[in-house]
């Protein structure tokens, strides 16, 4: 009996070691792929950071209305955020290549599905980017307009508009990523409705005077001298 146990153990050890020996080249390939991708990512990050610094990327982003990106960036530098994102993509690509070499048959499906998901990720990122641009632009427009109208809740209004657009963009991006679409729809509805309700209440409770003035202005006779008013006031 002990002979049979010993034989079974020997066989399982042999099977394990044979299996391990079969996986070893793949494992080494994974490690090498990861090492190379780390090195490439490091070089790419340095080059990108220097390139972006040379064109004052951080300052330009500020001018283009993406000041809020600074808050989300490592060390408050959007250049670092961009360069690190690029580095992460290179490392991820190296990892996928390594995984594919590890066990071509079982991992090819994983790699395929990951690569198939990339267009969704890119689409979602584009939606977020465009949403962020529109949100910043509208928030600034509303803020300036509200201050000029002497509305004391100008900042609240501006923030409300900004978050409305951002919530919409995030919901669209998650929809694009196919992450819990049911929950996203529900959460979006609740958040969007909540922000609109807050804004309506905030504005309605404070803007009686504004509405009265606006109605009075509309009720006035339009001037016959209606050709490009501004230069008549100079």
């Amino acid at each position: 009996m002990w002979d049979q146990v010993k034989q079974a153990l020997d066989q399982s050890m042999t099977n394990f070691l044979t299996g391990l020996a079969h996986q070893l080249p793949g494992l080494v390939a994974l490690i090498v792929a990861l090492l190379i991708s780390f090195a490439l990512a490091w070089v790419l990050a340095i080059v990108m950071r220097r390139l972006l610094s040379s064109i004052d990327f951080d300052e330009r982003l500020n001018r283009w209305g993406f000041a809020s990106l600074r808050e989300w960036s490592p060390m408050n530098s959007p250049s670092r955020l961009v360069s690190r994102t690029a580095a992460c993509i290179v490392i991820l690509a190296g990892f996928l290549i390594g995984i594919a070499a590890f066990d071509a048959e079982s991992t090819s499906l994983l790699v395929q599905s990951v690569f198939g998901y990339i267009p969704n990720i890119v689409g979602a990122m584009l939606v977020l980017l465009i949403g962020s641009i529109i949100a910043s632009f509208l928030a600034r427009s509303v803020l300036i307009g509200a201050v000029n109208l002497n509305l004391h809740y100008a900042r609240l209004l501006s923030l409300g508009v900004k978050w409305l657009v951002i919530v919409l963009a995030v919901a669209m991006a998650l929809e694009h990523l196919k992450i819990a679409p049911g929950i996203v729809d529900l959460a979006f509805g609740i958040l969007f409705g909540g922000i609109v309700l807050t804004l309506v209440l905030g504005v309605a409770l404070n803007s009686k005077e504004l509405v009265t003035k606006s109605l009075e202005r509309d009720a006035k006779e339009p001037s016959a001298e209606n050709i490009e008013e501004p230069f008549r006031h100079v």
Partner: protein
Amino acid sequence: MEVDSIPQPTQEERAQIDSADLVVGILADLDRDDIFMLCDGLRNLAGSPRIVVLQRDPVGNAVAVPSQDTSLSLLPWSAVGPDPLGEPLQTMSLACRSLFAVTEKMSARACCLLASRMESAAPGWVCQLVHPLLESDFDLVAPYYAPSKLQGLLNSSIVYPLTRCLYGRKIHNPLGPDIGVSRRLAQKILGTNRNANAGPSQTHPLASLAPVAACDNLQICEVHLGARHYPPTDWMNMSSILGQVLGAVFLEMERSAACWQRTRGFVSVPSHGERQSRSQETGTLEMNRMVETFQLGVRDLQEIWGLVLPPATLFELRKMSRLTPEQVDMPDELWARIVYDFALAHRLRTINRDHLLRSMTPLFLAWVVSYARELDTVGAITVEQRIERLSLAYEAAKPYFISRWRWPDRFNP
């Protein structure tokens, strides 16, 4: 005169009007009597020049004038057509360019744009505007309206001192809008606009007139036209006016940067006519509301102003915002620097240009409050003395502006 029974020029007669000595474009909301008075005045011009008067009329009809009068034709603006620029006259900019194009097409010696009504309807005021063009060969005849304390403040606070300081000519109302222009200057303006790409880089003809005339050393004069009737100012809707007017002025500054950086000092231009004063001041200011808007701007627009104004200016503004409404006072030096900083930010496109100019509104309102309060004090100086002092502040700050314009990154105090 039985005007209704007199026929208008027929289509054929209109087509035959292919040349003139003077083209007058009327954008002002004038009634029939005013137009007849104006035509009578023009008929009496020395030398009997052939005159075409274009009247903007949405239905395409002009007030009829005697057909036997061959020296003067009164046409609806749309009849000089098709419109030389193929665009409807929806803006004053288009109207100006159309007028200049008609002047060129008819080989007229000069043209004249009338866009205002005068408070004292003296019949000769149009002739005063035209006379230097035809008799003395001036290229630009700018109006000199009787100074008003509470009207035309955008001109008093920015346009006039800035034009005087940058281009070295003391033109009190450089943007008109009632102006006389020689054919030579009209050609230059049309050429400037043709060279610029259509769209945002195209400058406004009214904003280009004084700079082009000054930079090309053309003959400029002013005519005292009396008190102008201004449309009522909606102080709560100043941002769109600021945006459009300053946008045009700053765009022209960018185009003519090489010229104004060389200009030093200023000279007065010859003036014609008798200086007149305003019989009564109209308009009121809601000073407390204006100060509130300024304080709100200091509180909420920091992130925008921080991109445009240097820290020292922001510090001054914060200090001002903590004062009571009665104490708010914007020093001329600070105001001049603010205007220059916004002009620079406009050039650099630091932020969206429309946002930039609109965000200047609370600062403008603060200046208006401190200006009006100063004029209201007992034994106050006159409007002209006050604006003269402001102009000197602009001149003192010009080196600062030139330095920032040339080295925006390196020179940022």
